[in-house]
């Protein structure tokens, strides 16, 4: 029983990441009709916003400590971060410690700006082009972005820890009346889940309850008619692109403490998030979220030893098996709309 609860938690947690990326991807599919292969790269850039802020805060003055030596036998250079000099060691240390939450604020303007530039500078020219061309150009962009990151940050993963206060894990089981220490779960992963829930809720509320959102939804359903009504839908779509980029970026920022970011993490998530979007159904935001959580939970259950012993290797392919079954039984995924990306 406790094993199952744990795997559900794991699934929700993985599902949060899938759902957030798929949500952004669907916003772009649904509003702009663009297949964005660079979406994984946006997620990766978000994570590297956290890395960058961490590095910026760690910019240091070097002082030579003659009593110690480095690996070549020269006097050791001791580094003290500027922030510790400016704000005193304790407060300075606290700022560095909280770099990931701070990076949320840092990343939002950056991601929105990147989204705007991408849309206005590149994607705009591809609205009327075939999907294949969109794939090629955004894939090219994704490669360029990740190579730039690789050039400046290297290929190895870079650790970006969560604040000290959230590094431990929480005894979930004791609270629910199980034996202590059977169901424990890391704080940060629970925060990630809560954060994802807030973002997803926020996006839905924005689309559902604001006039702006209403127009965008109308545009998703029938772009031409909305345009004929004299509404400048393009401008709103640009803003939606910025929003989608910000969602992907935030998913990346918060993901950085869970797994150390590296330059190809975007590509690792890219294919998976496409599967999630399509299984959810093209053009459906709730579908994307639902599919994200569903596949996350399925993946977690498939990695249980009891299941692996019956079907060896099932954890390697479960997502794809699920995708095939769903697409064969439900022609447009879980909640897809007719006619979106079907030709």
């Amino acid at each position, binding site marked *: 029983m406790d094993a199952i609860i744990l795997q559900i938690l794991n699934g929700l947690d993985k599902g949060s990441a899938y759902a957030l990326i798929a949500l952004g991807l669907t916003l772009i599919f649904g509003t702009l009709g663009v*297949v964005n292969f660079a979406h994984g790269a946006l997620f990766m850039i978000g994570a590297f916003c956290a890395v960058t802020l961490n590095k910026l805060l760690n910019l240091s003055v070097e002082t030579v400590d003659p009593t110690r030596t480095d690996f070549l036998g020269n006097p050791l250079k001791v580094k003290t971060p500027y922030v510790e000099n400016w704000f005193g060691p304790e407060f300075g240390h606290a700022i560095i410690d909280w770099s990931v939450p701070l990076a949320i604020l840092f990343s939002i303007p950056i991601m929105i700006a990147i989204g705007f530039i991408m849309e206005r500078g*590149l994607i705009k*020219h591809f609205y009327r*082009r*075939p*999907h*294949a*061309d969109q*794939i*090629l*150009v955004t*894939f*090219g*962009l*994704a*490669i*360029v972005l990740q*190579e*730039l990151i690789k*050039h400046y940050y290297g290929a190895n993963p870079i650790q970006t820890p969560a604040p000290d206060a959230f590094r431990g894990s929480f005894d979930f089981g004791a609270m629910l009346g199980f034996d202590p220490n059977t169901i424990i779960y890391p704080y940060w992963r629970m925060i990630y889940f809560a954060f994802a829930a807030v973002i997803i809720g926020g996006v839905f509320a924005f689309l559902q309850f604001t006039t702006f959102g209403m127009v965008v939804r109308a545009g998703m359903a029938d772009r031409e008619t909305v345009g004929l009504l004299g509404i400048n839908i393009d401008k709103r779509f640009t803003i939606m692109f910025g929003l989608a980029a910000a969602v992907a970026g935030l998913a990346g920022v918060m993901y950085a403490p869970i797994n150390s970011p590296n330059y190809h993490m975007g*590509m690792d998530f890219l*294919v998976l998030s*496409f*599967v999630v979007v*399509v*299984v959810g159904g*093209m053009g459906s935001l709730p579908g994307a979220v639902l599919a994200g959580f569903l596949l996350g939970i399925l993946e977690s259950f498939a990695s249980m030893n009891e299941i692996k012993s019956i079907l*060896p*290797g099932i954890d*390697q*392919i479960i997502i*794809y*098996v699920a*995708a*095939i079954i769903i*697409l*064969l039984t439900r*022609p*447009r*995924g879980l909640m897809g709309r007719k006619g979106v*990306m*079907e*030709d």
Partner: protein
Amino acid sequence: MLGLNKKDATLLGVVAVLVIFAPFILNPFPQDSAMAQFNAGYPDLMQRFVIFGIFAIGFNILFGLTGYLSFGHAAFLGVGSYSAVWMFKLLSMNVIPAILLAMVVSGLFALLIGFISLRRTGIYFSILTLAFAEMSFRLAYSVLTPITNGETGLQLTLEDPRILGQTATETGGIPVTSLFGMEMRETATMYFGGWSFQFNNGYYMCGVILLLAFYISIRIFRSPFGMMLRAVKSNQQRMNYTGLNTRPYTLAAFVISGMYAGLAGGLMASMDPLAGAERMQWTASGEVVLMTILGGAGTLIGPVLGAGFIKYFENIFSKINESVLHSWFHALPDGLENALIWIAEHFVGSGWHLTLGLLFMLVVTFLPGGLVEGGQRIGRLFSRKKQADKKTATQSTPAE
């Protein structure tokens, strides 16, 4: 000639000339010159050009004609390679049975996957093919290791039975692949002044098969069957409403295209008897999509050009390192030399991916029809009178 109209015959002729003289065309620089780095006329790369050309031609029969974007085509190439290597291990080192088996097995595999995936259209179809291919890759890498040898890749060993051949040569080595005794790896070298040109048996065998594959592809493009496939692309619904079942046509295209991929896989194994699971990864499937779009989807020659373009960058640009850059720029003053090297380093050597990504973006932005369109534009610059007749041999009818 050969049932082709004049334009197609000319195109086939041009391709044939290019294939025959590739060892000269690809080696334009003398061996000792600094530009020799850009020579691509060595057997392995020439074989790759041709093999990936075949792969892309096959992919184009599906994608270019029917508009069905398969994201799992590498699986057929992988299956073809595995079948060919197993043939070398069990039967003989002759490439003919290996290539035939590769085509048959990948054709059957394509029939199975196509039968299921073609029940859906658009992106749903793409994701179904992707799912099958990723499953094949992941299983081949892990649980299917007894058949595929997993991470290391399936290779020949000194203990293979090889019913119609020898297990090991007299000198204790593993026998090499051959076409009735003609070794695939045998290469003749011709020296001419500062140049050296390499003529490789395997390359010419692949070249002949490429011409054959290209010819068949032209015939398909120009046949009523090809017309039907184009009709599927422009409006499948209308076809269905007229009471016509399009599924058999698309399935046939899918299987043909899968067999082309299997043929390419079989040839790869024949040139170099090893089959690795990465051949089936989604990135490999993506690569053939990129080749086709980059060259010009729906055109006859485009996919071959795209394949050559990507393989050239992968193999030539990745090998330009710092010391090569130094040798190019050493005549310049130190400051300028270092500045140039610093800039160039981003784009060559370990930065070759960046160059490739930038070129993808540039080509697709400025040449919507891919490299073929670039060629046409240049062609038009030189012969103005052809401008009236825009529909050249290489350009297919736009579908939408």
